[in-house]
């Protein structure tokens, strides 16, 4: 008990200043009372005596301060002593120091990077006031689309939101006087800024009151960054008139610097009122109640005291009102609320699952690193047991020795943490300005903030303490007399030690990482080689939107035809195909399909919703899509001829039960138009690489005009060589048309982005894990060999065979390796289920994965035990025996 008391007193002097203060107060108070007692005895009245005693004593606070200084200076003195001692010890073993610092730098760096991503994508809310009660409305899980008239009803009829706002993402040509260039914008409802409760940095925002019907509010609010880069912070920009798709718009204000729109990964250049959508996007959905894809997202702050559940109930009652009032357009819906920052449940759950999983892995890696360093540290402490014993015998306290050990450990971890943090901040900065997807202004908002620094420092100190803890028991157990006398600890190892368990855990973590990264790499390779339903190699993509150059109505297909003819004339071009949106880039538009005999054309009665692509006759040829039956489209299928379509095999199978059956048959669209199927093409990927086979319909572009334009240019030569010729031809055709030219393979980066990220991050983690395991096993094997060197030498001298010696020296390490690898493989196979959402066909049931993991772990074991094994075999018994 006395030990406990003294420990508590010690701790309180260190940590509980207030308690020390109280005790000091009590002691000084008692002194004054005692003095007053004496003065009272000499004849003074009690009150006078106390007053006199206080005056005699002098300034209490001053003395208390002196006492505190005494404490602090001695604490610092000891710290400096320990630091000096630690530095000296570490300098004497540079190998250990460098290993430890590098290990920790890698592990802490990995953690800081992953935490930075976690922080940027998941923990940090949107940069708007009261972001915690900001929600977006989803129709079904992962679908935030809505039609504009439905939005207006929801906005005006709900009783749960404090202002419900809507926005779309679009691109338009912005002309500030010289050269029109493509810019990204958000079309937002008039109440957008008011509902989000933000104030302009400059000028004013537009409001509800500015909306007076279609095209009534030609105003632009610039995003701060765009104002900074394109208008050089010019405060006179307010009131300036610019051309947007050849329509005059007035810049009314600049948004505050911290506001980047309402999607985390997209920073728009400016904001325009959605009532001007026709001018900005070329089409208008303001009156199209049936156009489900009219509005990208609805969001708003919940009113105080309203729960998300109450809000969805409120919305659902409006939903049934809509269903009853507009049966032709609105089917049954179930509204849900979701967090807007990652577009609700569309990106939220997979991103969250992946990043959280990555964080977990990073944490495990740090733990493994600590385990590793802990055992290294313990091994060192054991080697230093003679020194420790000597110091103890000379009167040093155990606490003092432990404190020095801790100082050493924390010193290493802080240096390692500093390196790790420095590297991770650099990496995060690069990631934050990285544009992973060409053609689309996606960003990863992962700039390191105070949290990242804080977490790195905490992790560094914590891991220092953690691995510093490992040798504590060892030091406490040291019997100085025995050690100084006999020169070795000579404690027999127990069957299973904590260190063994740590090593097994570490090996299995490494095996998990290796398994999942092999699975990810396999999946990525498979998706690169799988059939997309088109051939991206040797093809260029020219993308534009004719609306940006002011083409409207009938002028659109005419210009598209001219574009095709112009590019076809360029030497080296094999064929040119037009498609409104290329597959795997945002997907086609959804088209509701009804059986030919259907009479009930309500949305809920649709037989299927297929991806719809408007194409030119040569598209299949240019894209390399195989025609399976019937014919392709022709130039005669124009606006005056009957409606025709080519469908994919999945469509033919689903609607007409077979490919050959489909040709010549009809299906109906929602407006009642009968469409004849004239051909069937192979299946492809339309929205994402991981999707199951989907139905798709290809219609003639003259029958379904759309100003969005992609031209697939197939060439017999290196497609990149065509780029200059394409550019100049397009410039000759229309100088004011912003175009984007890239190889099709390059454009696929958009679809491959998630699996690439997964593969790279898992690969990096896997390599880290492997390095840690190697050092861990190596450390253990080397230590056990060096401890038993004498014994091994004697056994060799007595004629033991090499195999037997190896077995006894390394058997334990190999056993641990096998055990850990097996456990890790099992966990890894379980973990890949999560991966299958991100990486195409990530399946663990793959013999290559199994063999890969086993081979990798075996190599790892070989690498780690090679040097200790050599050392064990090269023991020279004579030399050894002489030395002792």
């Amino acid at each position: 008990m006395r030990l406990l008391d003294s420990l508590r007193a010690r701790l309180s002097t260190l940590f509980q200043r207030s308690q020390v203060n109280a005790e000091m107060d009590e002691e000084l108070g008692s002194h004054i009372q005692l003095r007053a007692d004496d003065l009272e005895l000499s004849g003074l009245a009690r009150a006078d005596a106390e007053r006199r005693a206080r005056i005699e004593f002098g300034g209490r606070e001053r003395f208390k301060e002196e006492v505190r200084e005494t404490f602090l200076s001695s604490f610092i003195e000891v710290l400096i002593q320990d630091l000096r001692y630690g530095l000296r010890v570490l300098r004497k073993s540079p190998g250990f120091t460098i290993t430890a610092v590098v290990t920790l730098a890698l592990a802490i760096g990995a953690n800081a990077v992953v935490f930075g991503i976690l922080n940027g994508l998941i923990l940090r809310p949107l940069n708007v006031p009261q972001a915690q009660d900001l929600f977006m409305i989803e129709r079904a899980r992962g679908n935030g689309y809505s039609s504009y008239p439905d939005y207006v009803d929801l906005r005006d009829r709900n009783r749960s939101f404090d202002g419900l706002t809507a926005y779309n993402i679009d691109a338009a040509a912005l002309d500030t006087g010289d050269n029109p260039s493509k810019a990204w914008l958000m079309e937002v409802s008039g109440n957008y800024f008011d509902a989000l409760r933000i104030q302009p940095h400059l000028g004013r925002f537009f409001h509800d009151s500015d909306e007076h019907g279609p095209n009534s509010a030609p105003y632009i609010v610039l995003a701060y960054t765009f104002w900074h880069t394109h208008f050089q912070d010019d405060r006179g920009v307010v009131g300036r008139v610019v051309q947007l798709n050849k329509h005059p718009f007035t810049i009314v204000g600049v948004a505050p610097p911290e506001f980047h729109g309402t999607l985390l990964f997209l920073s728009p250049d400016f904001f325009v009122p959605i009532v001007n959508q026709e001018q900005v996007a070329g089409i208008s959905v303001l009156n199209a109640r049936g156009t489900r894809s009219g509005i990208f997202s609805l969001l708003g702050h919940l009113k105080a005291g309203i729960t998300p559940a109450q809000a969805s109930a409120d919305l659902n009652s409006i939903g049934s009102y809509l269903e009853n009032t507009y049966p032709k357009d609105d089917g049954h819906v179930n509204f849900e609320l979701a967090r807007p920052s990652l577009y609700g449940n569309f990106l939220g759950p997979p991103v969250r699952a992946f990043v959280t999983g990555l964080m977990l892995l990073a944490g495990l890696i740090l733990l493994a690193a600590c385990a590793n360093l802990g055992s290294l540290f313990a091994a060192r402490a054991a080697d230093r047991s003679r020194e420790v014993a000597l110091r103890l015998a000379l009167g040093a306290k155990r606490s003092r020795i432990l404190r020095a050990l801790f100082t050493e450990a924390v010193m290493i971890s802080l240096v390692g943490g500093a390196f790790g943090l420095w590297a991770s901040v650099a990496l995060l900065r690069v990631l934050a300005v990285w544009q992973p997807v060409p053609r689309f202004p996606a960003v990863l908002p992962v700039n390191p903030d105070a949290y990242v620094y804080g977490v790195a420092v905490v992790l560094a100190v914590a891991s220092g303490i953690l691995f510093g803890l490992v040798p504590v028991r060892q030091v406490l157990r040291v019997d100085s007399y025995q050690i100084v006398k006999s020169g070795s600890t000579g404690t027999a190892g127990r069957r299973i030690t904590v260190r063994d368990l740590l090593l097994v855990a570490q090996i299995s973590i490494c095996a998990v990482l290796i398994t999942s990264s092999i699975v990810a790499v396999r999946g990525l390779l498979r998706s690169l080689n799988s059939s997309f339903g088109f051939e991206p190699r040797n093809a260029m993509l020219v993308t534009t939107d004719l609306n940006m150059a002011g083409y409207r109505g009938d002028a659109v297909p005419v210009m598209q035809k001219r574009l095709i003819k112009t590019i076809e004339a360029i030497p080296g071009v094999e064929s040119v195909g037009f498609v409104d949106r290329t597959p795997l880039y945002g997907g086609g538009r959804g088209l509701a399909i009804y059986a030919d005999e259907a009479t009930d054309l309500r949305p809920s009665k649709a037989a299927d919703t297929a991806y719809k692509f408007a194409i030119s006759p040569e598209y299949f040829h240019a894209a390399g899509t195989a025609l399976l039956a019937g014919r392709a489209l022709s130039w005669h299928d124009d606006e005056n001829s009957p409606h025709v379509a080519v469908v994919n095999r999945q469509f033919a199978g689903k609607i007409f039960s077979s490919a050959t059956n489909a040709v010549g048959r009809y299906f109906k669209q929602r407006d009642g138009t009968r469409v004849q199927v004239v051909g069937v093409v192979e299946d492809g990927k339309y929205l994402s690489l991981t999707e199951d086979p989907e139905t798709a319909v290809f219609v003639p572009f003259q029958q379904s005009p759309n100003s969005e334009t992609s031209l697939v240019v197939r060439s017999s030569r290196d497609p990149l060589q065509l780029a200059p010729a394409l550019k100049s031809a397009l410039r000759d055709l229309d100088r004011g048309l912003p175009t984007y030219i890239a190889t099709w393979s390059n454009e696929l980066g958009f679809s491959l982005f998630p699996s690439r990220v997964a593969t790279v991050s898992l690969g990096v983690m896997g390599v880290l894990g492997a390095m840690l395991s190697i050092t861990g096993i190596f450390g253990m094997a080397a230590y056990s060999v060096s401890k038993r060197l004498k014994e091994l030498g004697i056994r060799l001298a007595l004629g033991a065979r090499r195999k037997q010696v190896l077995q006894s020296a390394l058997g334990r390490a190999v056993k641990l390796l096998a055990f850990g690898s097996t456990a890790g493989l099992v966990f890894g196979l379980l973990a890949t289920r999560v991966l299958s959402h991100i990486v195409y066909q990530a399946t663990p049931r793959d013999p290559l994965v199994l063999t890969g993991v086993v081979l990798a772990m075996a190599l790892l074991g070989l690498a780690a035990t090679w040097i200790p094994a050599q050392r064990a075999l090269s023991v020279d018994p004579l030399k050894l025996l002489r030395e002792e």
Partner: protein
Amino acid sequence: MANQAQILPGTLDLLILRAVSLGPLHGYGILLRIGQISGNALLIEQGALYPGLFRLVHQGLLKSNWGTSDNNRRAKFYELTAAGRKRLRQETDNWNRLAAAIASALSTQPEEA
């Protein structure tokens, strides 16, 4: 009071150790004891005693325990540890040597130099 001397810097610790060596004492008691053993010739500011006491405790030369004074007041009592006893011996020797040396230096007559 006029013939009281200010104590030399560094000698307070020695005086405290000496005072406590005669038996456990609380802070006020130490002051009284120093007064007593020095024939009231040394002036110590009362509060100035405590930083010295805490320093000695922290160095492990003194240990302290709460107890009750003669007139039933709660007070913290200090006593010497083994290290403190050893230190007192050393410091006493040092001091005696120093004092003797200085006394001899000061009493030297001009012709002897």
